[in-house]
């Protein structure tokens, strides 16, 4: 009798082990959704998304839910891919924006912004709450040749590595803010000359020697590392394009707010644009610019530049742009697949399609309505945010 009890204890023990192994990371997840905004394959009504091992295994209308899968019933909700903030400064605990730029040096191409990132900072939670799952963390615009931006997922589940790209490129700035009183360059012309000189030296420097910024810049002039160039006004953008032409850089224009005025020139060079935030304080003329840029055939992504904006919400920019002439589908793509492609992570992120990372946002309405709110955020198949209350 004693022996029997021991045996049954063993049976319970082993069956609970089985449960544990099937209930861990490998358990698949099935999301029934009222509307699925796939972004690459239209909108699916009353569909199912199957997630396995953090990846999207299947998506469609008539999909069987695998046995043992955890089912999330979102049949009255909208599901879209996790949104991507193409340039921001969150998680850097910046109270005086002091940690973004190395303002004493003009050239800081070896600085990695990731070294200042805290994935558990308050504003990371805020970003998640608004449906942003991946960001490009960027240095600021005060270094003519700035540091290296990184692409990170805001995965707070602690289950995965959040870094997609530690070195996603090198930042350059043609903005007036890159000029200082106490170090060169102090003029616009000097600013362009300095950037060119650095690129020339990187090009000429064959054997190297010990110069970490130059090692990084060599990869930029070889066009295997993108140049993210801050240029807001028409003249700044024109300077940026002249440099891109001369050195045949693989480049992205950052915060090119006035890009609409020379949109055809940007389109001809196939330069993507990361658009600065549209706010309730923006003027009508400025609100129309994003739409004009995209209508000229330029690939667009939105950036919050947070924490400079008061209330973090990337989606508001896309909604305002759509209200002022940006095609609705392009507006949504700018928050997702287009941003992913611009940042070089389009193979993993930006759409709800087979094989991509299961980074999903569940809203209680149309994503392009401000009345809709984010109810749940999933990264790599894990629920990382769930709205309280209701």
């Amino acid at each position, binding site marked *: 009798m004693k022996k029997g009890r021991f045996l049954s204890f063993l049976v319970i023990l082993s069956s609970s082990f089985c449960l544990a192994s099937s209930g861990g990371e490998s358990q698949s997840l099935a999301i029934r959704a009222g509307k699925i905004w796939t972004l690459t394959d239209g909108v699916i009504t009353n569909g199912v998304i199957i997630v396995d091992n953090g990846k999207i295994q299947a998506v469609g209308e008539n999909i069987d839910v695998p046995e043992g899968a955890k089912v999330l019933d979102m049949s009255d909700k909208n599901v879209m891919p996790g949104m991507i903030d193409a340039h921001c400064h969150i998680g850097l605990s910046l109270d*005086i924006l002091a940690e973004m730029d190395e303002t004493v040096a003009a050239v800081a191409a070896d600085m990695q912004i990731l070294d200042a990132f805290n994935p558990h900072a308050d504003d990371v939670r805020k970003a998640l709450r608004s449906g942003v799952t991946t960001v490009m963390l960027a240095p600021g615009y005060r270094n003519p040749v700035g540091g290296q931006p990184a692409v990170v997922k805001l995965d707070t589940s602690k289950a995965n590595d959040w870094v997609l790209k530690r070195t996603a490129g090198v930042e350059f700035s043609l903005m007036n803010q890159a000029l200082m009183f106490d170090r060169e360059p102090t003029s616009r012309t000097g600013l362009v000359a300095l950037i060119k000189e650095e690129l020339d030296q990187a090009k000429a420097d064959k054997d190297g020697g010990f110069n970490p910024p130059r090692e990084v810049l060599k990869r930029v002039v070889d066009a295997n590392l993108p140049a993210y160039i801050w240029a807001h006004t028409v003249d700044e953008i024109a300077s940026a394009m002249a440099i891109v032409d001369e050195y045949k850089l693989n480049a992205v224009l950052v915060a090119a707010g006035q890009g609409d005025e020379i949109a055809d020139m940007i389109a001809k060079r196939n330069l993507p644009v990361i658009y600065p935030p549209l*706010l*309730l*304080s923006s003027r009508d003329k400025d609100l129309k610019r994003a739409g004009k840029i995209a209508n000229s055939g330029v690939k667009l992504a939105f950036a919050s530049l947070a924490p400079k904006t*008061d209330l973090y919400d990337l989606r508001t920019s896309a909604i305002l742009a759509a209200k002022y002439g940006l095609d609705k589908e392009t507006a949504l793509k700018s928050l997702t697949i287009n941003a992913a492609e611009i940042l070089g992570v389009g193979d993993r992120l930006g759409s709800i399609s087979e094989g991509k990372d299961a980074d999903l946002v569940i809203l209680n309405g149309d994503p*392009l309505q*401000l*009345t809709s709110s984010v109810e749940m955020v999933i990264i790599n198949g894990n629920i990382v945010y769930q709205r309280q209350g*209701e």
Partner: protein
Amino acid sequence: MPRLEYRHHDIRNAAILSEKGIKLALGVSGRDGASSKFVALTAAMAVANGMDRDLALRAVTLTPAEILGVADRIGSLQAGKDADIVILSGHPLDSLSRVEMVLIEGKTVFERKDQQ
């Protein structure tokens, strides 16, 4: 940079206050000359953050009229009140609706030109 007074600003505040029965008007009196043209969008944002739809719409029409002591003349479409009327392309809380026409005391003061 977030201003210090916004550090603990919670976008659910409007919903929380109105749930407690507090009379509440929404505004855009922000920095940088945030425009009152977006007052309907702030109502939409309040809805997203838990405020009742009807109360949110009231918070940009009748409620502010009451608070300002002019509800006998404006704030609702009612016989006898001033003919201050907005005509939109869609629901007032629809973020993509555009204002097509505005009347004040029965006179057209705005008409949208680029009809699409």
